[in-house]
């Protein structure tokens, strides 16, 4: 296990370097000069432009720029954006909001997804199973932004049950509707995954053994079937945390939440490359970390998996 842990940690390094290099190249090798347009109509003098280029290492060759950026990532010093704001402050402001939103969505999709999936899987082929299966397809088919809109309009504007937008320092309640919207698509996948997994495990030999030795139905389902069925679900949920944080761009836009997504989108529109790269790097780190934790959990959850 320890050996596996070490090997798995080593694998993360090239992935992290490759992903950040790729993102950095995508953002910084794009045509156009980010400095030239800064002064607006009057433009900046050559000397000032030169100074700004030096400040942001834009006069260095590309690979040196990237290495300097990496150094910044490891020392948590991302520098300042074009408006003089420390980027680490921008991240510190945006990340907790998005993290809270993503965690709320994760809990929602886990609780409801596993619940419905279990009920559907136990009676596979029944009317409840059919309904849940079709509803899950419908939820997947309606894109997040459409659902966000419709729910915001109906539940927020028309009925007034939820706050319409979240704004600055959002409360738990004002993040609830956005979290539901964000969770919806993944919820449908969790339902389907749990259902298939439960239905498969129900016909396994160990379930027959458990029944044969006289365990009550609820004990067989709860202790044996559910626990074994959760392995693929946990894998999905872990990988999904990264998706939720990255995919929050649309949800945060609709509900006006000042999280990573909203900040990132604004930075992209304004062409603040360094902010874009820093935020995407943070998201990639979260994504890689979540996948790493899932891999390790996997080994812990399933005794059949032995990593030599």
């Amino acid at each position: 296990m320890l050996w596996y842990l070490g090997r798995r940690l080593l694998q993360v390094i090239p992935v992290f370097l490759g992903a950040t290099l790729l993102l950095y190249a995508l953002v910084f090798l794009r045509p156009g000069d980010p400095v030239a347009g800064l002064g607006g109509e009057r433009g900046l003098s050559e000397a000032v432009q030169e100074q700004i280029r030096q400040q942001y290492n834009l006069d260095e060759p590309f690979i040196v720029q990237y290495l300097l950026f990496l150094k910044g990532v490891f020392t948590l010093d991302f520098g300042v954006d074009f408006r003089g704001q420390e980027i680490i402050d921008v991240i510190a402001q945006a990340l907790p909001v998005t993290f809270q939103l993503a965690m709320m969505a994760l809990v929602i999709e886990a609780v409801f997804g596993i619940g419905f999936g279990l009920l559907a899987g136990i009676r596979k082929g029944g009317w409840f199973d059919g309904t849940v299966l079709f509803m899950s397809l419908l939820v997947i088919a309606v894109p997040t932004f459409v659902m966000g809109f419709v729910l915001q309009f109906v539940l927020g504007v028309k009925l007034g049950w939820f706050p319409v937008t979240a704004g600055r320092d959002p409360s738990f309640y004002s993040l609830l509707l956005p979290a539901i919207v964000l969770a919806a698509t993944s919820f449908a996948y969790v339902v389907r995954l749990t259902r298939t997994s439960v239905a498969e495990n129900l016909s396994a030999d160990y379930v027959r053994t458990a029944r044969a030795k006289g365990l009550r139905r609820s004990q067989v389902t709860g202790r044996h079937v559910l626990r074994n069925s959760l392995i693929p679900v946990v894998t999905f949920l872990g990988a999904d945390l990264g998706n939720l944080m990255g995919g929050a761009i649309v949800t945060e836009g609709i509900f006006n939440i000042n999280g990573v997504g909203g900040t990132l989108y604004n930075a992209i529109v304004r062409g603040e490359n360094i902010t874009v790269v820093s935020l995407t790097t943070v998201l990639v780190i979260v994504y890689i970390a979540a996948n790493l934790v899932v891999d390790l959990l996997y080994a812990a959850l399933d005794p059949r998996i032995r990593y030599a």
Partner: protein
Amino acid sequence: MPDNRIETVPGGRRPRPGQEHFAAELDEGGLGAVDAVKVDDKPSSMWRDAWHDMRRRPMFWVSAVIILVVVIVAAFPGWFTDVHPRFDCELAKSLQGPEPGHPFGYDRQGCDIYSRTLYGARASVLVGVMATAMVVVIGTAMGSIAGYFSGWFDVILSRITDIFFAIPLVLAAIVIMSMSENRTSFTVALVLASFGWTSIARISRGTVMSVKNNEFVTAARSLGMGRGGILLKHVLPNSAAPIIVYATVALGTFIVAEATLSFLGIGLPPSVVSWGGDISAAQQSIRQAPQILFYPAAGLALTVLGFMMMGDVVRDALDPKARKR
């Protein structure tokens, strides 16, 4: 050192003394026949079983009809309406309800919503199909080469896959599209495909690795078939099932991703009629006329639903475990 030995066989390989007597003449026809049986028999019987299973399920026919209708509408929107989605607009009719000849009413610009919904199918289907085709080609190539020629190839290709996998699709698409000046269906599909191929690569790598240990692969190799030939003629056709299932579902996901990008204003330009763009435009008028949002959203949802259902049905039919009920 000059080589003054005499070449006895063209092509440079000299048989050891006496060995040529044992070499039988290759009977190409016979070997071809053996191959043909292996190649044609196995996949087609699996597919025939699947077809037998699928055609009894109503969900298959429902999704098939949805896909067929959407594809026909996307290809020939002019068959169903004479109204042009962009040029037959009257601002005077902005946000007006349905009237004869215009069953869905008008949007903010006074354009016919029925016509725009029909023409919007084209962008979605085009981007979805192109992105899926690219993803299948890139993903299968990367995955099957990694899985088949294990060793260093596998290590390098798998790490490259991991790198692309670590960047969420929508995030990468937003970063690239926001700086792209040339935004067409093709570029949107290309961007989606260049970050969306990793799942297929992983799936095909896994299947190829399990398929390549089958007896028929060993048989083909012992019959003297080259590695590339075995991969293309034996391993890939037998690994196709999970790739096809995933591709069907991926088509739906790409359509949603395109609509999301167009909704954010960085997908297709406004000159292209698309559901995502129309939904984005409907945002402003949702209080006065909610029906504007409904039609493009319904078209989008129905299309995605069609492909998702088809993926479900095909997976169930191809999965022997699910078939034993």
